[in-house]
């Protein structure tokens, strides 16, 4: 039973992925083929270059910057919200009237 459930979930994800692949293909048809830049070919070295490790850290920093920016944009807080937040504050602007 668990296996069937797992398969059905994988099928749902595959269907969604297929839909996105179709959308990507449709989008690709509307895009013009760019002329290759010389530096693009230079990027395609087969062997890894360990001296380029700082680039990985740079990507990590970029993701961190996006995360912080996201928190600011979505008005999230870096610290947990105080418990008092969201409670109504009575300003006592209206005088109490006797109950009828």
């Amino acid at each position, binding site marked *: 039973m668990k296996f069937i459930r797992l398969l059905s979930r994988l099928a749902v994800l595959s269907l969604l992925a297929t839909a996105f692949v179709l959308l*990507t293909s449709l989008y690709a048809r509307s*895009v013009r083929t760019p002329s290759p830049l010389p530096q693009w070919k230079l990027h395609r070295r087969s062997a890894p270059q360990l001296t380029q490790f700082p680039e990985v850290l740079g*990507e990590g920093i970029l*993701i*961190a910057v996006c995360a912080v920016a996201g928190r600011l944009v979505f008005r999230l807080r870096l610290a947990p919200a105080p418990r008092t937040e969201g409670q109504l504050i009575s300003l006592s602007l209206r005088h109490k009237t006797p109950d009828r």
Partner: protein
Amino acid sequence: MAAKPASSRLKIIFWLDAALLVSVCALQTLHFTGLVLHEWLGIAVVPLILLHLLLAWSWIAAETRRFFTSQSLRSRVNYLLNLCLFGAITAAMYSGLLISQMAVPAITGSKPAPYMDWKWDKLHSDFSAIAVILVGLHLAFNWEWILAAGERIFRRFLGGDR
């Protein structure tokens, strides 16, 4: 107050997410990995993403059901952001498979394309860049969970295990 001990499920999810984050950083640096490792790592990430989604299935199912009914704006934005992230990663993977010079020919036994399809190469770069931004926003939305999980997993090192 000391954090509760971390369950094995929490540890799996935390380290899986950490592995995915490191993989995304590595995949974005073709200079560092080289083309061979880049392509194989891109293929290896697919089962990790599927596992990440399957482990979060209860959230996905609940939020999908609630999307059109009673849901806060924050939850809706979070849901749409996750959907866009899935779409961007799928597009990056698909375009990556189409321009593969090493991994896909090795798996299928075919010869690599004699010329690079620059259109798909450009799309691959664009969708990857979008995916990186969305990963950052995904982290922003799940910041509290990451902090809480990290606190429970590293509590020994943080001095909470007394």
